[in-house]
């Protein structure tokens, strides 16, 4: 048995990744029952901090230098991890589960299936493969909450969970921390959502004002370049989207806004031709479509960002690099990028390819306000140059960038 100490003590924590400073001189001291918001812009080291205090960095990664004093309930992070009092909820929720459904996973973990269902709001019999990114994240978070961990580290919940669900998630986290004397670290770049539920704020970079974006992308008044007419898509016996009609015009764009699991990604994938639909799908002759999926890292080639750009463009990409402000990332390996940075690089690939229709799933995943502005600016450029843009997002602030916004609810579409 270990001796209970202070909740979490961090003194002068620094992390170097391959000679590059990822985190410098972080101090934090919080008692049990606290929720701490870790804020900072994209690439400021939020994920690195979470992985260092949970012992994951020291256990699994090579070439990382971790210096400083960290204690979790008086234990070294690696000891705390091995004693099972630490739960880390990653940015990438795809690889987590051992079982095939939430019900099976709950049984394996010794967690009451009903409690998991109440906490996550997800149908516990549905296969993980059929769940949306946001739903996976919620199941993952609830497993962590119900596991009895004393240190919970949540990475970018606002990137995955829709704003409506996020209030429930944060309030559950708050209650859990108070009831079980746990410490929760929530790393996010959207202070307006996380701060109201937090006791402390740890800033790893400049403070951001609440994000406001202006409408910059018109509906488009040119010819129809892509469309769906009365389209339906099903997974086995379950109908994911039904009777969807949508037109994308040259020189403009549209956004699909909706809660986790509403069917946004399915509509987007159907439009891009990644899924078979019943009904009609049309892409105008000669028009090239470029898809940026929700998890872009999985289709990178593994070289540097510059090499990745050359895969899709033979000419110079200086314009695109400047527009998105990714000059500093060119020599970095794509697999060393943060989720937000990889989003910007994915968009750069779409722009560099010169595609006519750019289709993006959750374009602001892991991005701070400045990053979201850069994405909006780049998409506006695509529309100005006669291209078309379609995005699926659960971020209402980003949806405001578009004049034409459709609400996706229960697999159906309605204009807002």
């Amino acid at each position, binding site marked *: 048995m270990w001796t209970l100490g202070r909740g979490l003590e961090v003194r002068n924590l620094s992390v170097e990744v391959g000679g590059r400073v990822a985190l410098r001189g972080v101090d934090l001291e919080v008692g049990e029952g606290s929720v701490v918001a870790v804020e900072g812009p994209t690439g400021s080291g939020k994920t690195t901090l979470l*992985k260092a205090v*949970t012992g*994951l960095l020291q*256990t*699994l*990664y090579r070439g990382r230098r971790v210096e400083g004093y960290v204690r979790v309930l008086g234990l070294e992070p690696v000891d705390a*991890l*091995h*004693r*099972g009092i*630490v*739960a*880390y909820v*990653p940015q*990438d929720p*795809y*690889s*987590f*589960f*051992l*079982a095939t459904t939430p019900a*099976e*996973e709950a*049984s*394996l*973990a*010794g*967690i009451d299936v009903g409690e998991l269902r109440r906490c996550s709001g997800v149908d516990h019999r549905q296969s993980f*493969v059929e769940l949306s990114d946001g739903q996976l994240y919620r199941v993952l978070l609830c*497993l*962590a909450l*119900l*596991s*009895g*961990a004393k240190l919970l580290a949540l990475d970018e919940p606002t990137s995955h969970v829709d704003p409506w669900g996020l209030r429930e998630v944060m309030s559950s986290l708050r209650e859990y921390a108070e009831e079980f004397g746990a410490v929760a670290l929530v790393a996010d770049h959207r202070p307006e959502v996380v701060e109201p539920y937090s006791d402390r704020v740890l800033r790893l970079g400049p403070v951001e004002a609440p994000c406001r974006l202006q409408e910059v992308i018109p509906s488009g008044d040119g010819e129809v370049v892509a469309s769906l007419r009365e389209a339906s898509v099903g997974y086995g016996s379950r109908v994911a989207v039904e009777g969807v009609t949508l037109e994308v015009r040259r020189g403009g764009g549209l956004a699909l806004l909706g809660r986790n699991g509403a069917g946004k990604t399915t509509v987007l994938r159907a439009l*891009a*031709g*990644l899924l078979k639909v019943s009904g009609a799908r049309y892409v105008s002759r000669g028009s*090239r*479509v*470029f*898809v940026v*999926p929700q998890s872009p*890292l*999985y*289709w*990178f*080639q*593994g070289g540097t960002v510059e090499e990745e750009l050359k*895969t*899709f463009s033979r000419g110079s990409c200086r314009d695109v690099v400047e527009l998105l402000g990714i000059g500093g990332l060119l020599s970095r390996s794509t*697999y060393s990028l943060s989720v937000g940075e990889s989003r910007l690089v994915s968009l750069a690939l779409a722009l560099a*390819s010169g*595609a006519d229709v750019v289709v993006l799933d959750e374009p602001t995943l892991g991005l701070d306000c400045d990053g979201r502005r850069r994405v909006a600016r780049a998409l506006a450029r695509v529309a100005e140059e006669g291209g078309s843009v379609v995005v699926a997002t659960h971020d209402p602030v980003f949806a405001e960038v578009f004049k034409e916004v459709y609400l996706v609810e229960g697999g159906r579409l309605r204009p807002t």
Partner: protein
Amino acid sequence: MRAGGSDLPSLALALSLVPTSVALALVPDWLAPPVALALTTAHLALRGPRATLDVARFLATFLAVFVATSSAAQLALAGVVDLVLQYEYSLKATSLAMVSSLVVGYLRPVALLRALSRVSPGLAVALVVSLKLLREYPRLWRNISSIYTVNLGGRRWARLRAVVLSARALASSSVYLSLQVAEVMTSSPTLRRLLRY
């Protein structure tokens, strides 16, 4: 929950893969076509057309690379291409892929984990991670190749390039995926309970 009651069937099934693979590699040439056909039919019947198609697509890409490099090597060294030899190797590779996919489909990672963690928790986790990756690959391949096919356009040369780029992306993402799986599994409440650490 005890998966399937005892952990032994899962362990036996996993261990049976080794002699089965050796036996398939040693199958006489005249028997290779009916064995490949029988295993493909069994896969189709037991795991369904979608899973069979996934394995076939995955296999086709790597067989294409194998046949191309093998032909080039044969031409360079012997001046002729032995098509019969390539046909036999392709059939044996198909048999191996089908039987592996069948076994993996029926293995219970949890049961395996329990059985092996008594011997070595590290080995058990490594095995479960491998099993999880094996199951992920066909789906990941389908996703990656469909994205590259759309993003590079539909022309013939572009489709060929899409296959090459997809294979590279799959190889690169394997490292990333392994790390992700290891990371979440290290802090997974499910795994902690199963290994009781």
